[in-house]
Structures are given as C-alpha cells and as structure tokens.
C-alpha cells in the first residue's frame, strides 16, 4: 500500500543513482567498513617469542597434569617428582606472562586439553623427558630475538627444563 510517501528502498536507490560517480565506491565501501589504514603490523619478534614460550609452558603444565592422571596408582615417588616439576613449569609460566604487556595474539586462557591414557611409569616419564629436552632447545633457539632481560629469563628457564630430564630419569621405574 502506498500513501504517496516514497519507500526507503526508493530513497536509497535514488541517492545512489543521483550521487556523483566517484562517491559510489564510498557508499559501497560503507557496507563493509572503510579501510582507512592497512592491516596492523605483525608483533615484533620478541613478543612472538614470548607468546610462543607462554603457549609452550601452558602445554607443558597440561602435559604434566595428564601424566599425573596416567601414572599407575600407588607410584608415589613418580607422582611427587612429577608434581615438583609441574610446579616449576607453573612458575615459568607466571614469570613469562608477567613480561607480556599486551595480550597474546592468540590467547590461550584454556590450555589445550591433553589426555594421557594410563601407561607405564617408564613410558610416561620418557615422554616428559623428550618434551623437556625439546622445550629447552627451543628456548635457546629464540635468544637471538630477545632483549637482554628476557634473554636471561629464557636461558634460565631453558636450563631448568634441561635439568628436568636427569631428574625424571632418576625416579624409580623410569626407563634406564
């Protein structure tokens, strides 16, 4: 039904038809937002390295939680040792996060859930040992991109993670 008043569609259509040619792209662009600036620059190398280290530590804490769930019941020596090392990873995570001023590009507030099926103490510890050595090496590989204080923190954490390997190996039931 029309009462002589032009419809909204007709007004919009007339506006576009009547607009100067140069203004049409602007009208169209308004539908998807004007790109005033280019895409934001990627974060600097030290922020990327820090974010990666935070994610790695979160995964390590989760891996130890999974290991605790998978260790045979009654293996108190292994449980105590795994809890001790997990606490050190939690301390690493806290220090790394305290160095990140801006939010991580890919916040991982909920660490990836890692489930570990029940297994032998030896196989679980062996998996953790391999992860520790790899984590230590990875941190040292990032040193070139870091400012001095952060490089010292990475080097210290890398050293700590390397020491977890012989520490886990000396637990009764660990693979020789």
């Amino acid at each position, binding site marked *: 039904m029309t009462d002589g008043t032009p419809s909204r569609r007709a007004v919009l259509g007339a506006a576009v038809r009547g607009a100067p040619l140069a203004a049409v792209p602007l009208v169209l662009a308004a539908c998807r937002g004007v790109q005033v600036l280019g895409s934001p620059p990627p974060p600097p190398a030290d922020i990327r390295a820090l974010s990666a280290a935070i994610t790695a530590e979160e995964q390590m804490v989760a891996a130890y939680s999974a290991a605790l769930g998978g260790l045979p019941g009654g293996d108190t020596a292994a449980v105590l040792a795994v809890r001790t090392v997990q606490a050190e990873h939690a301390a690493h995570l806290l220090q790394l996060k305290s160095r990140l001023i801006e939010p991580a590009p890919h916040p991982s507030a909920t660490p990836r859930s890692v489930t570990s099926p029940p297994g032998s103490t030896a196989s679980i510890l062996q998996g953790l040992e391999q992860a520790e050595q790899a984590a230590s090496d990875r941190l040292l590989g990032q040193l070139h991109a870091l400012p001095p204080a952060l490089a010292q*923190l990475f080097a210290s954490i890398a050293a700590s993670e390397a020491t977890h390997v012989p520490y886990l190996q000396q637990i009764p039931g660990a693979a020789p």
Partner: protein
Amino acid sequence: MTAAVVPALQSTLAAEHSACYGYGVVGAHLAVGSAALSAAAEDWIAHQRARDALTAMISDRGGRPAPSAVAYELPFPVTSATTAAQLAATMEDRVAQAYLTLVALAELELRMFGAEQVRTCALRAESWRGSTQAFPGLPPASLRR
C-alpha cells in the same frame, strides 16, 4: 663490540677461577675411588676448559685476562662428603649466575655461549643436589611477583 663485553667476560672468568679452586676443596673431601670423586674431577676439568675459553675470548678482544686469586673464602665450612657436594652445587649456582651476564650481551656468539654454560652449570648443580630449580642463575629479586 660494546664496552660491556670485556668486563662481563672478566667477571665470568673470575667465577670460573673460583670454581676451579672450589672443586679442589670438594675433591679433597670425597672418598678415593668413589663415583662422586670421578664426577668432581670431571666437573673440575670442565670448569678449567671454560676458564681457558674465557681467557682466550678476553685476549681476542684486546683485554688482559684477570689471574686467579691464591685462595678463595668458602661460603660455609666444608668438612664432609655431604658439605662438599653442597659446595659443588652452590658453586654451580653462582657460576650460572655469572654466565647470565653474557646472555645479556648483544653479541650472539657470546649470548649463546653464556646460555649453554648456564644450562651445563644447572645440570651439574642438579647432579650434586639431586633436585632442580625453577630459575637457575637468576637471583630471586629479579623475578616478578
């Protein structure tokens, strides 16, 4: 090369000199033929090698490597195999801290050398202590709360 390089190398060399001295004390309190004495001898040699490497690095940069002192004050009395092991672990902690000064340098080669040495010291400390540390070489005051 920045002006901070040679002083950082000198302070690390001083730490290695004291470790070389300290392992002599450690070895004197360990039983002949024991695994601990073998480990101490191995660690002593490793510190001598690191000391020589640092000496060469300083000379290569035009510095004069500081000589070792005649003797060093021990952080606590060493009277047994147990306190000898504690001394070894304590020395490794302190040498690791010295190497962290190299990690703060901009020269990548020295930074990597320092970081590898921090790791090696931490591994030796773990073997003497039987336990690990969350932040080897970092003084607690440097950690954020």
